[in-house]
């Protein structure tokens, strides 16, 4: 018995001198467990359906093409994809997918009454926040990155395979695909941080999620100053093919990439720090949850 206590004590002593090593190990442990939950639990089914929706729709459109010019001409496809990406993938799939994944990181565990296992282990609460957030990031980037790439594939290749091969492997298509992938990643980073903290602060996070959705949706109508208090504004600024927001849109200068990317990352770090601070003071009773 005592020898085991000694081994645990030795580990504790080791951690005092090398906390970063232990934190990395703990983060990997959390990541491993959370990824399994994110990908294999019953809750993941909704995310698979959501992520597969644009691909399935484009598959149907490839079989039964609609009758309008942009769709029939290869040159119009980049604008069609920009529209699909903005309205369906970014504003619906990525937004609601992130809401579901990241709000459940803590809220889901409270509902399942299993969060105490983390709180009863020798893990700094801040490390727990980082581990869970990273698991959400990996899950969402893998799924929604695949959605982005497969949607591009479904739009271009079934009807224009030769032109598409040239466009993506020799022309500007490859770079555009990477930019879309980058925007998806940034969207997941930004929305992920927001929904992580929404899941921590609100017992019923659906209402705040819908309010955020409304704010992001009406972004094109907001004055330039308010536009900047949103994630979608910075993502729009990075679009390789700008989308026409319609006649009622309030025009604003897009934020350059060198400013919009760091802004999103700094915002994310601030939100994560706040989440860590809150988690450090968090209590568990499960009563009423």
């Amino acid at each position, binding site marked *: *018995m*005592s020898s*085991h*206590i000694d*081994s*645990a*004590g030795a*580990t*504790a002593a*080791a*951690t005092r001198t090398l906390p970063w*090593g*232990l934190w990395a*190990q*703990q983060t990997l*442990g959390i990541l491993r*467990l959370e990824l*399994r*939950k994110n990908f*294999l*639990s019953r809750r993941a089914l909704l995310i698979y359906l959501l992520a597969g929706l644009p691909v399935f729709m484009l598959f149907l459109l490839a079989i039964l093409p609609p009758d309008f010019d942009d769709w029939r001409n290869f040159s119009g496809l980049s604008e069609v994809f920009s529209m699909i990406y903005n309205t369906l993938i970014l504003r619906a799939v990525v937004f609601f997918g992130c809401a579901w994944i990241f709000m459940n990181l803590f809220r889901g565990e409270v509902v*399942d*009454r*299993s969060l*105490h*296992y983390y*709180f*009863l*282990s*020798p*893990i*700094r*609460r801040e490390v727990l926040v980082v581990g869970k957030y990273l698991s959400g990031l990996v899950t969402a980037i893998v799924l929604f990155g695949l959605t982005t790439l497969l949607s591009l594939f479904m739009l271009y290749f079934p009807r224009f395979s030769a032109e598409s091969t040239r466009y993506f492997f020799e022309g500007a298509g490859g770079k555009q695909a990477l930019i879309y992938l980058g925007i998806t990643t940034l969207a997941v980073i930004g929305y992920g941080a927001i929904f992580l903290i929404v899941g921590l602060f609100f017992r019923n996070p659906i209402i705040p999620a819908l309010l955020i959705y409304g704010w992001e949706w009406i972004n094109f109508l907001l004055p330039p100053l308010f536009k900047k208090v949103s994630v979608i504004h910075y993502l729009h600024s990075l679009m390789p093919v700008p989308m026409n927001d319609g006649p009622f849109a309030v025009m604003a200068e897009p934020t350059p990439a060198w400013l919009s990317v760091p802004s999103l990352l700094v915002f994310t770090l601030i939100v994560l720090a706040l989440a860590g601070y809150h988690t*450090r*003071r968090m*209590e*568990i*009773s*499960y*009563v009423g949850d």
Partner: protein
Amino acid sequence: MTTTMEEAAATTTAATTATRTATADRTAEKMIVFEDVSKFYGEILGVNRVNLSIAPGITSLVGPNGSGKTTLMNLMTGLLKPTRGRISVLGTSPDQPEELFRKVGYCAQFDSFPRGATGREFIEFYLRTHGASRRALENLTHQALERVSMLDAADRKVAGYSKGMRQRIRLAQSIAHNPAVLILDEPLNGLDPMARAEIIRLFRQLAAEGLYLIISSHILHEVDMMSDSVVLLNNGYVVAEGNVHGVRDEIEEHPMQILIRCDRPQLLAARVFEQDGVVEARLHDDKQGLFVKTRRPDEFYLLLNRVVLDGDLKVESVAPADDDLNAVYQYLISSDGGR
């Protein structure tokens, strides 16, 4: 000169205070200490003004539902934060989980598990958070599973376990890292009699190894059997604490009930009222014994000796009829009324 003496006195006082503080700190490092701890859930009282010092061995928290047992355990482990007061577990504050849970294992009452995990994975994940190496992890998991007799079922999904097995795997998880303090919320719930006996044996063994075991239970006779000390709770207040028999002695205002098995209980009944402290004498149903309620048991025992020496009475046995935890608890909550 006067100034010098005053300075010397001040220095001595400061030194004494520092020594006392250091001694108190050293004591705190060896105890689990609650200092004037209160916890309110909004306006609802969880526990109020709790002052406790818990030493090694088995300490049982006893009380009805809602008395504050689980609240005390959750405060000790940082799952809840005190509204007022200070808690120290062997010198560590529950605010520091990264330090606390190297010393503490908590088998909570929540009957839930990470989805899809086997018993072994459940324990291994927990040990991984301690930074244990692969080999240490396997060894510690094996030993913990062995201690709760769960080796055969270790690779089955926890979701398929019976209630008793889930209880045992939670216990294994809480002892796997060999903590110095083990906190167990109703650990005998759902266990069959064989398993109960086995687990109580394990608790005794752990206590003999020098661990601090804090156990909450409703099953008073089991608590009575295994506890070194008890903390009796009612409506969020500690109504008594200490050794079971010591706690009984503290309730001086409540008469003690003694059963005397003898050949002539009626004669004894007539003699016992010679004493002021006796408040009741009642014949046993089989007419072969007498229940006596007295406020002065020591004087009563002397009287009984005299009656026996007079040769009037043949005594078969003398035993306290209400010196168990159940009786003590009933006295306390009925007389105290939860304050």
